């Protein structure tokens, strides 16, 4: 099994979720994060104090999937999250050794 972690633009979440559902992935976990990268931030001014804010709001998605599905998941996320502008985000894939569904105790493939 693999866990696919994707950092995307916040307003793309619904589309990505729909894209994943379309290929049969029905579970995922979402975290609000802040990203730093090439995309430039903005300046905030509060009276005399100016701050260059370089961390931008992003959404992190984590999806655990079987090895076979990884390619399709990457494709689905890429397709849904792409705007073509800097800051669209990244996808990182790593292995997981074990998965458990807490409710039933099912493991691995059955747990997803």
């Amino acid at each position, binding site marked *: 099994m693999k866990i696919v972690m994707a950092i995307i633009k916040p*307003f793309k979440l*619904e589309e990505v979720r729909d894209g994943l559902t379309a290929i049969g992935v029905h579970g995922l976990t979402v975290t609000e994060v802040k990203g730093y990268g090439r995309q430039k931030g*903005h*300046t*905030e*001014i*509060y009276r005399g104090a100016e701050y260059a804010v370089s961390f931008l709001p992003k959404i992190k998605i984590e999806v655990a999937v079987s090895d076979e599905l990884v390619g399709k998941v990457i494709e689905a996320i890429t397709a849904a999250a792409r705007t073509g502008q800097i800051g669209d985000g990244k996808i990182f894939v790593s292995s997981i050794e074990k998965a458990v569904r807490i409710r039933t105790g099912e493991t691995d493939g059955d747990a997803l």
Partner: protein
Amino acid sequence: MTLKTSLRSGLAGLAFAATSAGIAFAQATTETPAAAVPNKGDTTWMLLSTILVLMMVMPGLALFYGGLSRSKNMLSVMSQVTATAALMCIIWVVYGYSLAFTSGGSMTSFVGGFSKSFLAGVGVESTADTFTKGVVIPEYVFICFQMTFAMITPALIIGGFVERMKFSAIMLFVLLWSTFVYFPMAHMVWFSEGYLFTLGALDFAGGTVVHINAGIAALVGCLLIGKRIGYGKELMSPHSLTMTYIGTALLWVGWFGFNAGSNLEATGTAALAMINTFTATAGAALGWLFIEWTVKGKPSLLGMLSGIIAGLVAVTPAAGLIGPMGAIVLGAISGVVCFFFCTSIKNALGYDDSLDVFGIHGVGGIIGSIGTGIFVAPALGGVGVADYAMGAQVWKQFVAVVVAIVWCGIGSLILFKIVDVVVGLRVSPDAEREGLDIAEHGERAYHP
């Protein structure tokens, strides 16, 4: 300037008017049978009422609207409301008061003149007439009270197109709209020589001038600028109903200044306007609550709050004219009708009147205006007016509504078009996505 007192006594509690008694007497000392001196109870009441209406604008309206917006636009909404209020303060004393409350010569059916520009001739001794013969209040407090009305009305409009209009466009629009739509409407309704005043349409505290007027302008604006990006697809839920709650509560609290203060005196009629502002509002809140509970299955707080506003809007023209039981009914009708309008009809028509300015202020204002003609009937507990006949009165109310819709509709359309040409109405899609707080104001509302 003087008021047609014969008319006024027949229409007690109907409309505003100011005379600068101090100045009049300074010029013509012959006819002075001792200048009327303000009663300090009345003066205090009007000072208080003015303060209350300011509290409606800020923080009241700013929080009500801001809470309903997304957090990335919170500051922009509050900025728009606040800058509008500040701008109207200045415009009002420079020429607005004069355009609304002086004689306009040959144009006086529709608009006043410039004789009191820069408050020329007004001093601490100047007074304004109330609706009771011989009872006056300091003119400065009358100017301030009316100023707060001029502050809140354009601020109300903003709700129709929050989260996407340029700050500069709003500033320019407010300047133009107050000049060409608001001051003339105020003159027509509240000044003794104005068209709707002389017609005899009833409007105790400004249903036509404030609510229908703002509702129509918001509708025109949201139709012209178009929907928000993602409207109907993305979650656009209120970012803080707590803020909307505070705003609504302060609007209710302040509305007693608006409605009962419009009596200009601290009398039993002010107390009647107060009790109606309680019972109509409660009726509308419960009306929306129970209809929503029935139709949607759950009674929401936002529903109750929307009902509160719908009730307050509807009772505005009627406040000192109807009875407390009539007010419950009027409020309940407004709550239920506005519910259907905001939840069904708007969706069916498919435009994005973002904070339902038309759906509540426009629709509620029309219900209130027509309803005033009905519930003023002594048979229905109202105080009555001279020579009252329900049909005739409702007709006058209807004419006033139509005049407001037409004047404001056409005027707003033209003015929005001008603003669009001059500075452009809408921010870029990127700015809209990022939120106006950062894009237009360089700040964020919250840093948790």
